[in-house]
């Protein structure tokens, strides 16, 4: 409770950090904030051109399918990558000023959400201008799914941001793990290509359920599978609690170790 009160007290700091994250990242580049979705978009186009040849995938509206998957995935990796480095980047103020340290990973997670919501406009445009897709009321579920992903990625980045201060290898190991997870998540393919008996292994990955849920509301205009969403929710909360405990335990040494 004390922590929450403190975060509210430091809300102006949280706000300025988020603003600096979003504006500062692309400062001086011609397209500015546009880069936050030009990149995933270009990536999606590349996959859309190449994959139908090598995989012989027959997915309807494959480009939109990819765009949703990649934008959701970019949200996830952005929060983790930025969050992992954020303590290190702010070593100067950590050593000199007291403030609730959790503000730093929290602010990178919030800027991730803002970037993602901007990118969702691109998804919407692709859906609107594709006569076979369109838009339905299901997108009102978007905030809920986004929130679950926010909790999930914040939890992971809390733990990693703290561990990375003590063991600098973490960032390289995580790069590899994220790479691996990209292919373990149904972004480029559908779960249907696996036999029914194996699919549950794939769905253990909480990102699989989230990517699927985004597609349900944007593309298929259905309500996401409730049991999958509930599972994702539980995993996210558990990871968040673990992340918070790890962070709280390690933050006391930041000023000495960083």
């Amino acid at each position, binding site marked *: 409770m004390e922590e929450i009160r403190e975060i509210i007290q430091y809300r*102006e*700091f949280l706000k*300025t950090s988020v603003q600096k994250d979003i504006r500062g990242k692309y400062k001086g580049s011609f397209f500015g904030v546009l880069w936050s979705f030009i990149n995933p978009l270009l990536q999606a186009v590349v996959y859309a051109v190449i994959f139908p040849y090598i995989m012989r995938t027959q997915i309807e509206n494959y480009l939109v399918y990819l765009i949703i998957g990649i934008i959701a995935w970019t949200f996830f990796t952005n929060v983790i990558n930025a969050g992992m480095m954020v303590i290190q980047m702010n070593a*100067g103020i950590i050593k*000199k*000023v007291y403030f609730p340290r959790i503000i730093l990973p929290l602010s990178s997670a919030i800027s991730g959400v803002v970037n993602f919501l901007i990118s969702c406009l691109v998804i919407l445009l692709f859906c609107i201008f594709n006569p076979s897709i369109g838009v339905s009321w299901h997108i009102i579920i978007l905030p809920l799914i986004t929130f679950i992903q926010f909790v999930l990625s914040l939890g992971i980045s809390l733990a990693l941001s703290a561990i990375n201060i003590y063991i600098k290898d973490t960032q390289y190991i995580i790069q590899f793990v994220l790479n691996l997870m990209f292919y373990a998540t149904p972004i480029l393919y559908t779960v249907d290509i696996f036999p029914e008996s194996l699919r549950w292994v794939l769905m253990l990955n909480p990102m699989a359920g989230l990517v699927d849920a985004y597609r349900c509301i944007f593309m298929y205009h259905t309500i996401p599978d409730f049991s999958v969403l509930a599972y994702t929710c539980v995993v996210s909360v558990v990871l968040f609690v673990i992340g918070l405990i790890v962070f709280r335990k390690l933050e006391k040494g930041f*000023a000495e170790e960083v």
Partner: protein
Amino acid sequence: MSENSIEIRNMSKSFKIMYDKPLTLKDRLISWKRNKYEMRTVLHDITLDIKKGETVALIGVNGSGKSTLLKIMTKILYPNKGTVKTYGKLSSLLELGAGFHPDFTGRENIYFNAAIFGLSRQEIDKRMDEIIEFSELGAFIDNPVRVYSSGMYMRLAFSIAINVDAEILLIDEILAVGDQHFQEKCFKKLEELKNSNKTIVIVTHNLQQVNELCSRAIWVQNGVIKLDGNPKEVVKAYLEECR
């Protein structure tokens, strides 16, 4: 008397001094068990109460643990043993201008810096004029901080930190800011804060200041409190020891 602002109970702090700090996993695996390090205890079993409204000077030779004690009061460092409790809003001036961004203007940096101290937007807006006036930067306030002279930089930073309206102010050897005129102004401001019942803890080597400003002096030597009491007596004893 009145209630405590800072309560320190049986507090010890030691640093791990690594000869070869293992940063990577490989280093850690290689130096498993034959890791050479020593624990250097910087503060031994300190128990200290600082009452509300007191102006306390921490004096002592370099490396005696004054600054570490101050950092522990701020909660930048955490003790290995014992507890530290503070009551009231706390502001610390450990190093001026931490968190300044050279490319932003003085005014923008006031927002960033004051936000780090935990002020809200309205609170900053309310203090803006006062901060600018105190810093005496005039038209320079809308120039990027990177074009400031080091004195101007310090003046801005000091003006922000002193105007945070904290109940407890922790200051580390930074009263030598700016020219004679600005120093006197800072000194006056501190006296004003002192008279408005704020708690102030200063680490300083300027013993004359200790005599003039402080109501209590604490002499820290080798991580223990050697003498605690009336500034005149403590300073006298300290000077005798130093000779």
